[in-house]
């Protein structure tokens, strides 16, 4: 392998650009307002770097959540340029010179870009996101074929960032709705050949706040930073309810 592309990257790092970043700021009990910051950044900076620089050099009160900075923890999903994204997985080069940042819709705002994820995790717990199997565990593993493992692979990638749920008009209209992320994590177990809780979960998801509030809008699949085809999984669950059981390969 050659390293011919390395100098280009270095040049891009050296060329900083002037950004105008508009942040929708809010605090409990106060109306939200837009605040504008001017800041230098490299096109190869991630948006979270830009926010950090603003916080560290201009305005220490700017509040946002971030932890891993590597797209794994899911704590920095926010609405960047009008669409839910992880600030640590989005490059300035892909956002332009004028960038807007808002808290995700569908969640109560705690402060600035930080939203309250408690209701979100409540919905997650509601679908029983753990293995349910009452048959005594065998001496070795509970075996599964490659095809059976593949059947629920997509859902295993979820990092619970909440971007999908916050992008869903059905969630905005009805905060009680369980939302895409919880269904993705239900799918993870419903379609696992080792799990015996499918009927129970399908029951939970077939009520008024269950899968049927999905109007196949696809915002969830468009925003998922883990590229999970979220709507496909929801449709899988809908069909499992219609046909009475999930279609899992026998072998």
């Amino acid at each position: 392998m050659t390293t011919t592309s390395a100098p280009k990257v270095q040049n891009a790092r050296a060329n900083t650009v002037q950004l105008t970043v508009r942040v929708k700021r809010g605090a409990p009990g106060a109306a939200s307002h837009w605040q504008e910051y001017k800041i230098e950044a490299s096109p190869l900076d991630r948006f979270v770097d830009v926010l950090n620089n603003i916080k560290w050099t201009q305005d220490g009160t700017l509040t946002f959540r971030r932890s891993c900075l590597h797209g794994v923890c899911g704590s920095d999903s926010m609405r960047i340029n009008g669409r839910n994204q992880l600030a640590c997985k989005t490059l300035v080069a892909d956002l332009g010179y004028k960038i807007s940042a808002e808290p995700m819709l569908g969640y109560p705002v705690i402060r600035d870009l930080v939203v309250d994820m408690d209701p979100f995790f409540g919905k997650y717990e509601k679908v029983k996101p753990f293995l349910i199997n009452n048959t005594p565990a065998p001496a070795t593993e509970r075996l599964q074929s490659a095809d059976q493992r593949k059947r629920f692979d997509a859902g295993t990638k979820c990092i619970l960032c909440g971007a999908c749920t916050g992008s869903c008009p059905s969630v905005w209209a009805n905060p009680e709705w369980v939302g895409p992320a919880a269904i993705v994590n239900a799918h993870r177990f419903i379609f696992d050949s080792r799990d015996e809780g499918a009927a129970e979960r399908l029951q939970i998801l077939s009520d008024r706040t269950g899968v049927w509030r999905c109007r196949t809008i696809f915002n969830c699949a468009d925003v998922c930073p883990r590229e999970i085809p979220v709507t496909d999984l929801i449709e899988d669950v809908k069909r499992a309810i219609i046909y009475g059981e999930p279609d899992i390969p026998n072998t």
Partner: protein
Amino acid sequence: MYRGQSGMWSWLLHRVTGVAVLLFLLVHIVDITMLGFGPTIYNNALSVFATPLVRFFSLALIASVLYHSFNGLRILIIDFWPAGAQYQRLFAVLTILLTLAGFISMGYFVLLPVFQGCPGVTCG
């Protein structure tokens, strides 16, 4: 304003056209009711549909019905064909193309009398 993509616009358009078709249905119930008052009243009521303004509304109705039907098929395919959701973007484009094809051909006949200068019922 959330920046959604083709799926969100399809859904929004589906809603708007759905409401439009429902409103027309109410108008349609009223005009069909006129039948009970005899042929003269019914014909007088229906001649409203021949005026250019109402022809224009008819165009909107045609577009709404076409879009709502084709997009309804798109949703059915997504719901029942396991691979359907992967092609939703393609289907969204097809929905628009089919709607346009139907709209242009039907719109031609709706507007023809207006351009021929005799938008009354008798010209049709």
